């Protein structure tokens, strides 16, 4: 019999097992291909949505999460494939012994089985790739239908081929291992159930309850398939890490980034100034959530100057808790090269180049400032003079090591003491002390006033009082309520995170399929045992309980490790200074519990099927 004919014939003879493995591998390849393509599409989609918007700090967090999720998708796929092929081929060890016993040479046996493996893996990879690309096409069409900008091109699907090739190689290498191991074992040992039933000695007998009996059989079945159980644990753990990173990362990042915006802009904050200045202020903030170019504005115009003592008068209005004067202007800022000393070699290393660009410059009184920015380094303090805290986009755009560098504008050089996340002007901003800016810009008076209202006060009443005070001074001055802009910014960030949160949905489907495939294979292997148990008087529901318990042990073990690793990764690597409230924890727990519950429910199907099969069918 030929080396190709025999494997084909053998695979067809084991229709159920072959079908299960092909279906499992196909679904695994398909879901990985789909997830990867979708992940890339989502990333590109986010880039296009965020083009000209979002500050660089936000983009870094988004990109990190997407790259990490993409890498995990591939790792999860490889882990799943390795489990499936190992499981399939480790069941053939007894056949190896039988073939050796009738005189087949090792090389021929290996050839037969590796051909079987190759046929199954190639068919699955081809089918999986086609299915994955088709699923991506379908989801893109759905997204386009839902109003997202997304175009599908076959040429964009090249990563699918890469995935197929990687999986093919991994599957062949890992699947060949148990066969190679078996060909090295004496045929008597290979034929003995002891070789593949990895149970060798039991403990002294103690009678137990019915539920403990179910637990005993379930746990022994898991340890009997030790190698396969370890592999499925690894596979599900990776999936849970992916799930946690996307869910926890998404939720934490969403809340953290919202917090960044809220604190930078402040709640219950009003901006007071000339109505043209307020229009410009609204425009600068809206650049965060709407793609807009620059527009010329003369900040130095005297008509924007705030009247003297207005700040004190507004501060005396009941319901106003703080007032802060600001001077807003625009300047052409330049990077200043500097030198740092290498702590190891003590050599002097030049830092930076000579980049430059336009930026918003805001003069603030550091001791009165109302915003609380997320800062790398520190914000300005009252002793600072020629110092600056720059926005994240400006820092990324023109500096290489901003905290070790200085910037210059209007003939002054400012040491950079911090980099902050700031939505205004999309992060192209530099904060400097007000007194210094007044001096160097020759604008004598501040042109903006920021006021915080007591949250318990009636905002409308306070705003009316401020308006009448302003009217008595100058009709051109007005009030801009920042809360409305803040809501728009937060909603935009929320929208981006919700798009990313689609990823766990697909990784969840992938995990469910993987778990179902594992249970189906495990159930097939335990079929005879279930038949005997039922013949001895075990009800079908007890078989469901037994399989469910096995599933639960595998699921909860991988859940515990995967979620812990995922949360650690998210908190320590992906989101800097995360905001984790009890609500965040509840939200993440809710998502992850729902996810594992759905995986568990899906894995019940093979259990129910096993319980419904006729006893004779199982035993024979």
């Amino acid at each position, binding site marked *: 019999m030929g080396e190709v004919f025999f494997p084909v014939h053998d695979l067809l003879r084991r229709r159920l097992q072959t079908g299960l493995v092909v279906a499992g591998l196909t679904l695994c390849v398909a879901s990985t291909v789909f997830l990867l393509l979708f992940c890339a599409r989502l990333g590109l989609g986010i880039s296009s949505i965020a083009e000209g918007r979002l500050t660089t700090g936000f983009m870094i967090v988004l990109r990190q999460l997407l790259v990490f999720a993409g890498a995990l998708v591939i790792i999860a796929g490889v882990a799943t494939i390795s489990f499936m092929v190992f499981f399939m081929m480790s069941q053939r060890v007894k056949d190896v012994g039988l073939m050796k016993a009738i005189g087949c040479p090792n090389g021929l046996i290996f050839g037969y089985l590796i051909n079987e493996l190759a046929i199954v893996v190639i068919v699955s990879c081809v089918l999986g790739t086609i299915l994955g690309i088709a699923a991506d096409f379908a989801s893109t069409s759905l997204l386009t239908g839902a109003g997202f900008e997304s175009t599908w091109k076959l040429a964009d699907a090249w990563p699918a081929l890469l995935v197929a090739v990687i999986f093919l190689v991994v599957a062949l290498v890992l699947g060949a291992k148990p066969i190679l191991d078996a060909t090295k074992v004496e045929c008597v040992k290979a034929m003995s*159930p002891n070789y593949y039933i990895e149970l060798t000695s*039991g403990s002294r007998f*103690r009678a137990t309850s019915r539920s403990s009996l179910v637990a005993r*059989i379930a746990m022994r079945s898991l340890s009997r398939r030790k190698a396969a159980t370890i592999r499925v644990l690894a596979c599900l753990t990776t999936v849970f890490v992916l799930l946690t990173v996307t869910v926890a990362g998404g939720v934490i990042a969403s809340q953290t980034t919202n917090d960044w915006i809220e604190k930078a802009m402040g709640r219950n904050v009003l901006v007071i100034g000339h109505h043209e200045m307020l229009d410009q202020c609204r425009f600068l903030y809206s650049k965060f959530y709407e793609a807009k170019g620059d527009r010329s504005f003369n900040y130095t115009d005297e008509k924007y100057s705030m009247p003297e003592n207005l700040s004190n008068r507004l501060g005396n209005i009941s319901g106003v808790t703080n007032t802060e004067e600001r001077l807003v202007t625009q300047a052409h800022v330049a990077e200043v090269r500097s030198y740092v000393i290498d702590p190891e070699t003590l050599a002097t290393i030049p830092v930076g180049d000579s980049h430059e660009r336009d930026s918003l410059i805001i003069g603030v009184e550091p001791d009165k400032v109302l915003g609380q920015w997320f800062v790398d380094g520190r914000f300005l303090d009252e002793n600072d003079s020629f110092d600056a805290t720059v926005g994240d986009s400006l820092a990324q755009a023109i500096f290489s090591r901003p905290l070790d560098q200085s910037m210059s504008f209007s003939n002054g050089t400012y040491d950079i003491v911090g980099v902050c996340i700031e939505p205004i002007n999309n992060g192209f901003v530099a904060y400097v002390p007000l007194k210094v800016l007044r001096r160097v810009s020759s604008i004598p008076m501040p042109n903006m006033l920021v006021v915080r209202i007591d949250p318990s006060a009636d905002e409308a009443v306070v705003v009316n009082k401020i308006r009448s005070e302003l009217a008595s001074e100058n009709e051109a001055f007005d009030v801009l309520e920042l809360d409305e802009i803040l809501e728009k910014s937060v909603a935009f960030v929320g929208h981006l995170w919700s798009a990313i949160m689609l990823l766990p949905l697909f990784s969840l489907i992938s995990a469910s399929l993987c778990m179902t495939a594992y249970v189906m294979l495990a159930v097939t292997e335990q079929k005879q045992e279930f038949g005997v148990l039922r013949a*001895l008087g075990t009800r079908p529901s007890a078989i469901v309980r037994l399989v469910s318990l096995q599933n639960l042990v595998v699921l909860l073990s991988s859940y515990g490790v995967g979620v812990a690793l995922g949360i650690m990764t998210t908190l320590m690597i992906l989101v800097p200074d995360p905001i984790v409230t009890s609500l965040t924890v509840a939200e993440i727990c809710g998502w992850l519990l729902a996810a594992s519950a759905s995986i568990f429910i899906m894995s019940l199907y093979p259990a129910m099927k096993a319980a419904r099969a006729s006893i004779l069918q199982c035993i024979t």
Partner: protein
Amino acid sequence: MGKTVVRAFDLCKVFQVGGEKVEVLRNLELDVGEGELAVVSGSSGSGKTTLLNIVGGIDRPTSGKIYVFDNDLTEKDEDWLADFRCSNVGFVFQAYNLIFTLTVAENIAFPMEWLRKPADETEKRVEDLLRDMKLESRANHFPSQLSGGEQQRVAFARALANDPPLLLIDEPTGNLDAKTSQNTIRLIQRLADNGKTMVLATHDERIFKISDKRLSLEDGKLVKLDG
């Protein structure tokens, strides 16, 4: 003979093999009284195992009625049959069908533990059965570590654990050497002497000699043979 334990009326069993229907049991009638050892013989594939499976409630007839302890098994659902098997029937399968994940002692104890018998009673019974079957040294071994004869003794011990009123034994000597077969026959003889009701499928002439009722399955029907 006491009251009737097993009664079968007009029992038929048809299997679908490929596209073909194979009628294994045809209008079969059977009566087994309490304490009786009924031995069923017949050529391979004549339906002996199928008959035992139907009597034990692990298979259902295509038509006809089967009563065991006056319960019509054809009318009962899977859960009822499971409980019935656990309490009333002890099976010794031809292939022994031990549970590979449980040790010898655990296999024997399984039916008692499943019936929620007290732990001390279970442990005492397992100990007695291990001693009776000369399996004490094998108590903590797994079935895959036993010889065929030892596996069969475990299967007997498990079938007897709950002291079920009906024992169904399929080809008890078919896979064994002469000496082990003789031991098995002695065990069956001892059970018969103790009044255990048994239905046994075999080709072994030695078992015919100790039977109360000798039946032969021919063309799907049971024919009573002279002792």
